[in-house]
């Protein structure tokens, strides 16, 4: 069976006035049909850039190379910009961190949703029919007083409500994959759970695959089937959520987990993250970009290309000296 999303050897650099930023280095990951994959790592580890790269939204100064960025078996890289329009929002939808600023502040949210639907309507969809379908969708995901909401401007709605609207927007064209980029990080904790429940149950019901980008390991382990750990633009560990979060193999995954307050007996068990992400503008980055923060580091980590270990069939670790 072909995976819903397959990325192989994705490398991305930004040309900036301050020099070339080596943002992504040989990233590879895949998401199966109906599967929810968490993409985790510190802020700045390249998670969002990976999501944006799939959607071709990195901006004009990004240089992308990849052996494959495939959706349901077809490589997207060959598509013209025009053909790619049929992917965006239609087959792959995206949910952003700050829903309030992701909605046009001068447009009623109902109009924005209608715009999205009409952009992908196969035949000429009348405004009225489009609105009716938008209303159905809002009601289906449990938004109360949906009709009134459609006439509201983003500034008049709460952050949680805006994110619900964005979820409706994402589901509107029945996509096969949703990329959710920190969808709940801007919300308070109680709203966070409600919005995550809504997103995940809606996706499970419809069999939509989800790439869930987050720095919150608790959320990732609660909602996802698989987890991919990223650090400084490199993919370090990829495996079933329970294995990665319960028994991490990569020293970085372990460090990440140790720094999280969840499930710790006492504060003494909490260990702060050591060191900082390396400056990605450097031209002398070590082969494993975690080398400079790693307790298990040896010379080969800096110079030789990193081997991939497979503790189990579905679990991959890119490290010379993984934990057992």
């Amino acid at each position: 069976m072909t995976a819903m999303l397959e990325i192989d050897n994705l490398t991305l650099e930004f040309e900036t006035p301050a020099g070339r930023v080596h943002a992504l280095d040989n990233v590879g990951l895949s998401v199966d049909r109906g599967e929810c994959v968490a993409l985790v790592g510190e802020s700045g580890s390249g998670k969002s850039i990976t999501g944006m790269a799939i959607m071709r939204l990195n901006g004009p100064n990004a240089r992308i190379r990849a052996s494959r960025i495939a959706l349901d078996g077809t490589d997207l890289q060959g598509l013209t910009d025009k053909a790619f329009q049929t992917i965006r929002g239609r087959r792959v939808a995206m949910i952003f961190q700050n829903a309030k600023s992701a909605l046009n502040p001068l447009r009623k949210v109902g109009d924005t949703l209608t715009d999205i639907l009409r952009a992908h309507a196969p035949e000429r969809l009348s405004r009225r029919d489009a609105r009716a379908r938008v209303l159905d969708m809002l009601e289906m995901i449990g938004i109360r007083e949906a009709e009134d909401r459609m006439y509201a401007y983003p500034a008049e709605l709460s952050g949680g409500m805006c994110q619900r609207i964005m979820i409706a927007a994402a589901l509107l064209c029945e996509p096969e994959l949703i990329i959710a980029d920190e969808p709940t990080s801007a919300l308070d904790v109680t709203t966070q759970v409600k919005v995550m429940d809504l997103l995940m149950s809606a996706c499970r019901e419809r069999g939509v695959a989800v790439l869930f980008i987050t720095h919150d390991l608790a959320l990732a382990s609660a909602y996802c089937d698989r987890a991919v750990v990223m650090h400084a633009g490199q993919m370090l560990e990829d495996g079933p959520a329970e294995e990665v979060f319960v028994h991490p193999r990569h020293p970085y995954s372990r460090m990440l987990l140790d720094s999280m307050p969840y499930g710790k007996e006492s504060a003494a068990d909490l260990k702060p993250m050591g060191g900082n992400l390396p400056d990605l503008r450097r031209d002398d980055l070590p082969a494993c970009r975690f080398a400079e923060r790693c307790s298990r580091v040896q010379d080969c980590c800096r110079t030789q290309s990193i081997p991939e270990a497979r503790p189990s069939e579905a679990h991959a670790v890119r490290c010379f000296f993984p934990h057992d």
Partner: protein
Amino acid sequence: MKHRTLRLIAWRLLMALPILFGVIVVTFVLIRALPGDPAIVYASGPNMSQEDIDAIRRAMGLDKSVFEQFLIYLNNIAHLNFGNSLVTGQPVLKDFGERLPATLELAVFAFALSLVVALPVGVLSALYRDSWIDQLVRVITSVSAAMPGFFFGLILIFIFYFLMGIAPEPIGRLSGWSIAPPTVTGFMTIDAALIGDWEIFWEALGKMLMPAASMAIFAVAPLMRMMRGGMIDALDSDYIKAARAYGIPRRKILLQYALPNAMLPVLATMGMVLSTMLGANIMIEKLFAWPGIGSYSVNALTGVDYAPVQAFVLIVAVLFVLMTLAIDILSAAIDPRYKLKG
């Protein structure tokens, strides 16, 4: 939603009232402070005896207290009584009525011209950031911001009237031998169009071109800059990124997502633009001998004829306050966040 907008408009009008009152107080102080005896200023014949002047003083209430005089002034304004001009010997109101349309026609045309030039170019320069077009725009805005309209006007006169001979004589609204159409609106172009005299219509339009360009030159730079900046901010925003991620067509993103948002900072600078244009109006009318209220007031001022000056200042300030108010209301109509702020 409608309700909120109406309430907002009412609130803004209310807020403008103290400013308008302040403007009236200032113009009142202006008459009192102007050099020369106000009685003499108001009286049309300068060779009068002391008794005549005293009589006028009493007639005008200048022997009363300042407060009472202020009330009289308010009353006069309420009745649109601005006194008489020494130079023309007519009531100032009548003089203004004859000249205001000429000023408005030129100002409206100049303003439209500056918008038509500045806004599209600003958008282009944002869309093609750092391209040659953007660099060119940057040079144009820097230079035109430093260019006084009267100097620019003279350069235009030299090039298009003297050197190339394609511009009409830079004096007035029509050439001496043309017959003006009967006054309906006072706008020469519209009046000509109304009677179907297209020859006069084109002549009037041609006569306006150079003065309007000279007036517009100062407004072009800030408008272009704000349009470019607003567009760049909009294009870099989350909602544009999201709109693109959802596959909304590029055209629609530009016209319905980026452009309205980019217009907000442009509207915010509009007050300053109008202020400079109202000032430029005085110099440009004088330069092109345009029979409007600007040149009339300057001539009155240099002729020590103060009643028209005071009326001019009052009228221009009130116009300016009203226009700022209109911009404010327009911004509120476009931007829902504005209403939330109150």
